[in-house]
């Protein structure tokens, strides 16, 4: 039942590299606008921004087919967009509007986009590890050739369920790729205070191949993801990627004063390794694009984002009576 039997692009063509640039930029601009919406009190609740980590979602999702599965986290906008979601429907969801992906029922932390294989963001740390592994089990049983990617922050390494499902994934050689977004903080606590031993030793204990990747370099992420996806798709079983990255903003949009848990200096150092800039420099260096071409991409995106946000702000809320719909299928 697999749709679109496209092959995984194994080499990074100029065209794909440009697409990746555009996709990372789209995530960045989308989220900058989300931050503005929060700060101008137009968005209810909170959002956890992905800014700084774009290369992970884009590098991994560029190695996937449209019908491959992903599961996402509370910091999920990047995964969602990288898997193909529409910005307008995402803005609508974040604003609690009827036209949103979940008709306003989910909000920032629960966007699911089944048309692109996105089985949902999740507000429970580690909460989607079972779902991703089960989707991989299903793909294998149904012989669809699909793979499943489980995105999670290193905070999820604390959850026992992750180890239960990794064990099964390895035992049963399931086509699942665990992508650990190692951004060094579990909310306001450095991961070294919560994580014993080496991260790599954990998948190794289950016999799952592990790779450590520079999560700021989308090309490196893409290469590693292609290897893992290729192996999983051809029956080689699960993989585990640890992508070192950094969230440039706070844990959520309201986390402004961060001095008590991480230094300005550290933030500055990571900002110098901006994934969007790293790819831009490579594109220019390779002569694939010049700065003015990239600026045009940025300008087009700015217009696209502005139009989508305006439309979402104008869009109607759901009818309050919908509150009782969808409790049962």
């Amino acid at each position, binding site marked *: 039942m697999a749709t679109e039997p496209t092959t995984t692009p194994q080499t990074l063509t100029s065209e794909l590299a440009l697409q990746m640039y555009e996709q990372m930029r789209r995530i960045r601009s989308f989220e900058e606008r989300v931050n503005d919406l929060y700060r101008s009190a137009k968005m209810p609740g909170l959002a956890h921004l992905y800014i700084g980590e774009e290369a992970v979602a884009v590098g991994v999702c560029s190695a996937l087919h449209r019908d491959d599965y992903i599961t996402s986290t509370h910091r999920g906008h990047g995964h969602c967009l990288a898997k193909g979601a529409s910005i307008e429907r995402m803005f609508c969801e974040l604003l609690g509007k009827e036209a949103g992906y979940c008709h306003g029922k989910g909000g920032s932390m629960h966007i699911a986009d089944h048309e692109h294989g996105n089985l949902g963001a999740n507000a*429970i740390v580690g909460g989607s590890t079972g779902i991703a592994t089960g989707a991989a089990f299903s793909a294998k049983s149904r012989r669809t050739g699909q793979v499943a990617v489980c995105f999670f922050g290193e905070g999820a390494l604390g959850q026992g369920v992750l180890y239960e499902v990794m064990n099964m994934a390895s035992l049963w050689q399931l086509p699942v790729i665990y992508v650990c977004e190692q951004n060094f903080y579990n909310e*306001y606590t450095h991961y070294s205070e919560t994580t014993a031993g080496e991260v790599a030793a954990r998948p190794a204990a289950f016999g799952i191949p592990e790779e450590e990747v520079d999560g700021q370099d989308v090309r490196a992420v893409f290469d590693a993801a292609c290897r893992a996806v290729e192996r999983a798709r051809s029956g080689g079983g699960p993989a585990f990627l640890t992508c070192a990255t950094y969230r440039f903003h706070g844990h959520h949009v309201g986390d402004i004063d961060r001095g008590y848990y991480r230094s300005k200096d550290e933030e500055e150092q990571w900002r110098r390794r901006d994934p969007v800039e790293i790819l831009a420099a490579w594109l220019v260096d390779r002569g694939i694009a010049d700065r003015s071409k990239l600026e045009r991409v940025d300008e087009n995106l700015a217009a696209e984002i502005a139009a989508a946000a305006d439309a979402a702000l104008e869009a109607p809320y759901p009818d309050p009576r919908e509150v009782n719909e969808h409790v049962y299928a």
Partner: protein
Amino acid sequence: MSTPSTRALPKQHEGTREISLAQAVNEALAEELRRDPMVFVVGEDVAEAGTPFKVLSGLVEEFGPERVLDAPISEAGITGLGLGAAMTGMRPVVDIMFGDFVTLVMDQLANQAAKVHYMSGGNLRAPLTVRTTLGATRRSAAQHSQSLHAWLAHVPGLKVAVPATPYDAKGLLKTAIRDDNPVVVFEDKMMYSTKGLVPNEEYTLPLGSAEVKREGEDVTLVATSSMVYVALDAAAELERAGISAEVVDPRTLVPLDRATIVGSVQKTGRAIVVDEGHRSYGASAELAALIAEDAFWHLDAPVRRAAALDVPVPFSPVLEDETVPTAESVFELAKALVGKP
């Protein structure tokens, strides 16, 4: 009517001061940590961060990281560790950041902590305290908004507190820590900034003692946690409509002060239970059943309930606001029950 006019409950008198519910919790923990070296606090982001709600700010500075421990994101493990420590002489206070995560610790609480004393024929004890939250309307969606206190109140062996005021929160938490049983304390995260009067002197409150938060004659509103304020606001509006409502706050669901609740309904002859858990099989069902059983011959009307809709809590404000009892909805319910137009 929706203004939180009634937030400052007790009258100002000598020897009290006004503090927030967050400060009250903080004081209770600090006092117990000072008093008993066996008390410690463990949870996610409880130390330097002082929890996302800043309820524990300053504790690690005073008591150090051996007694205020930042844990990995391992709710089941933290609670299990707390239980083991409790069974061997310590008095842990486990912090579960959101009430929704009690689902992750249900085995440790329901199968382990709740049963240890009974299964051991009384030989073992589990003086474990778990603090967590309940309550919707923060626009936090389905996995950060639930009120799951009824789940725990259903398990024999666990005690459950649902304080509404800073005074109650402080007094009950101190008692919970000193209690030889596992006690789960639910605080509504919307109430952390709610202010109230608290004595300067040290005090504790017994578990299992309800309080009449407002006296009245025509109808009893039995309300839990933040629903106490909803009931008080409704009562103020009812008074303007010529109806005198009594508000009873059980303060703990287990043990439950049946006498005060039943006594109030025997006096007024009508009862509405207001609770933020889901309506079906919830705390409101238990409280309504108690009234129906024990105050039946005094009732002039059926017992009514105002509870959360039986739906996951939706994100969109226009939907979420439909799911919880409000002063308006309780007012309408009471008016209809008393039979005034």
